[in-house]
């Protein structure tokens, strides 16, 4: 690396980034998630000006409950998008998995947890089957999962039978989306998260210093920890002033953090990125490409099932519309709005959460303003288009400046 040291002007440039250049970097997507956060702030301001209830603790708590299902489904979608594939069956799978759970619990008297596990297993099995078909026969995932969409919607109607809807009374299931924790428990969770995150950051930094890789300035790490801590404290503060921290939000966050860890920090996640970036390179590097693909579709099916079960819990029911309407498209739109590429190899699980927040806020705000459903759909469509256009423009600029 001696030649690296012999180029002082590069290092100097790095340090002397002016504010303007940093802003440019944010826009150009080095920190594309910040772009989305900025968008969220704009959305919040627009709605808050028109309807002061928007940022109330009660409405923000509602918003968290509203985005749980879409966020969970999007977590699986992010994995599929990282491969550069698509899964159109997630809406139908979420409905079917919830229906299986409900039928087993209500009609057959299964224990709630067993019924939930069965629902998730159905989602996983469907994902496994679709992934196997896609990778074994090299059929486009678009077609396989489109066939799945139709098939599993039919299966949902079949499972529900003549009545067409089932009410869920078991508190173990309905509690998933309707339990709120007391203020004390909320703060215990907050402290636990902050301490645990601090320890992880510190351990990681110490290891880098020991290996001579860190530059001896822990400030960015401390700043990162402080920002996350502030967000956690702020969230608990807001949630506690209403009904408390909802279990649903904890479930969503656990999956987002856990699945982000898997995709960014494990061998499997690295292989997902590699297959999405260059499948041939991955194959030559000895990665079992088809195994990765099948696993990803299994994850997608499982996450869809979990999302569907949360939706059923919140509604206290499963009906013929479960997992239908625009759920599928919004679950795909979310991560794309937040910066996960449709072409594979680029993105993060955080975009599932951020995208769900964007879509959820727009929908929630327009509900508060009493706007009709046609307007809601058109506005959401416009936002998706806008986000993709911004992404495309940024990509073009990066290409022009030689940064692909």
């Amino acid at each position, binding site marked *: 690396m001696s030649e690296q040291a012999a180029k002082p002007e590069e290092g100097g440039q790095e340090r002397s980034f002016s504010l303007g250049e940093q802003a440019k970097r944010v826009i150009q997507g080095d920190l594309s998630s910040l772009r989305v956060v900025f968008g969220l702030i704009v959305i919040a301001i627009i709605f808050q000006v028109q309807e002061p209830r928007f940022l109330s603790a009660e409405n923000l708590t509602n918003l968290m409950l509203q985005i749980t299902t879409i966020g969970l489904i999007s977590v699986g979608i992010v994995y599929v998008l990282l491969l550069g594939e698509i899964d159109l069956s997630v809406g139908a799978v979420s409905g079917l998995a919830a229906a299986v759970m409900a039928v087993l619990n209500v009609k057959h008297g299964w224990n709630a947890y067993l019924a939930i596990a069965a629902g998730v297993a159905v989602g996983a099995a469907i994902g496994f089957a679709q992934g196997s078909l896609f990778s074994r026969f090299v059929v486009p995932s678009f077609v396989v999962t489109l066939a799945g969409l139709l098939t599993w919607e039919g299966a949902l109607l079949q499972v529900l039978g003549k009545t067409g809807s089932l009410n869920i009374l078991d508190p173990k299931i309905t509690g998933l989306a309707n339990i709120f924790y007391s203020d004390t428990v909320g703060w215990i969770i907050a402290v636990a998260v902050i301490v645990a995150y601090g320890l992880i950051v510190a351990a990681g930094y110490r290891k880098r210093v020991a290996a001579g890789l860190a530059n001896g300035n822990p400030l960015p790490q401390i700043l990162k920890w402080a920002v996350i801590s502030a967000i956690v404290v702020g969230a608990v503060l807001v949630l506690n002033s209403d009904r408390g921290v909802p279990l649903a939000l904890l479930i969503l966050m656990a999956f987002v953090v856990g699945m982000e860890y898997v995709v960014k*920090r494990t061998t499997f996640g690295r292989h997902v990125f590699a297959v999405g970036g260059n499948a041939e*390179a*991955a194959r*030559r590097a000895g990665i079992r490409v088809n195994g990765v693909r099948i696993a990803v579709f299994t994850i997608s099916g499982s996450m869809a099932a979990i999302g569907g079960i949360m939706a059923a819990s919140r509604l206290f029911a499963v009906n013929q519309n479960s997992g239908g309407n625009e759920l599928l498209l919004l679950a795909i739109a979310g991560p794309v709005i937040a910066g996960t590429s449709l072409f594979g190899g*680029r993105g993060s699980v955080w975009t599932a959460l951020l995208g769900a927040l964007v879509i959820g806020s727009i929908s929630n705000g327009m509900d508060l303003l009493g706007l009709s459903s046609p307007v809601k759909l058109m506005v959401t469509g416009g936002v998706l288009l806008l986000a993709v256009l911004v992404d495309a423009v940024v990509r073009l600029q990066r290409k022009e400046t030689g940064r692909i």
Partner: protein
Amino acid sequence: MSSGQPLLQLEGISKQFGPVHALDRVDFAVSAGEVVGLVGDNGAGKSTLVKTIAGIHGPDSGTIRFEGETVSIKKPQDATSLGIATVYQDLALADNLDVVANLFLGREEISSGAGTVSRSLDEVRMEHEAGELLSNLAVTIPSLRSEVGMLSGGQRQQVAVARSLLGEPKVVLLDEPTAALGVPQTKQVLALIRRLRERDLGVVVISHNLVDVFAVADRIFVLRLGREAGDFKTSEADEDQIVSAITGLGDGSRGVKADAAALVEPESVPEGEGKS
């Protein structure tokens, strides 16, 4: 450097694709600390020979000896486990991953302790080792965490070569390592090849560019129509000899020579000479 027996030795290798003799009783060898340039016209059998060594397809007949022992290389894994690494022309890097991730792709380091269960990546160790490897090879890149897609062609080629060294191979096969590179980048890659020789590796370089081959190879092995057409010591050969071995045309009339040179060095074609 080449003390006694070669590291890798091929004897009487033949390979037929239908009626075509892609390789016809070829003898080829490379010793430790030696760079062999493998040259020949399109369809001369260079790729087939390399693919035979790399285990992409086995030979129809002939024997392969590695460190003096007869071995059979039937699949790529056989070659890898013997210690033969291949760097293909299309590089096979994932553009969306950074340099460290590409270097360790498929052989990631796993953290010890709790991380073993989830097969968590030991990024710190990988970055440390990647830094050492690249600085040993004097490979310069903007940052170990640069996305490979943002690197120049020469840097990508160097990363690809460095990557092949992580498996601690004894023989490295390079397929057109300088194709499509600019002059300074070509220099960097050639310098890297010389450092592989200093590490006592056996290096086989396939190239169309005779200038590069002369710059880096100790020996030049010429194939023509699947047969050995010459095996020259670089110090004792001149470009005309190699060109006539490649084309199979003796150095007779001036016009023939110029035509032959056009195969390898289009810019050296004299004025008025038609394109081949």
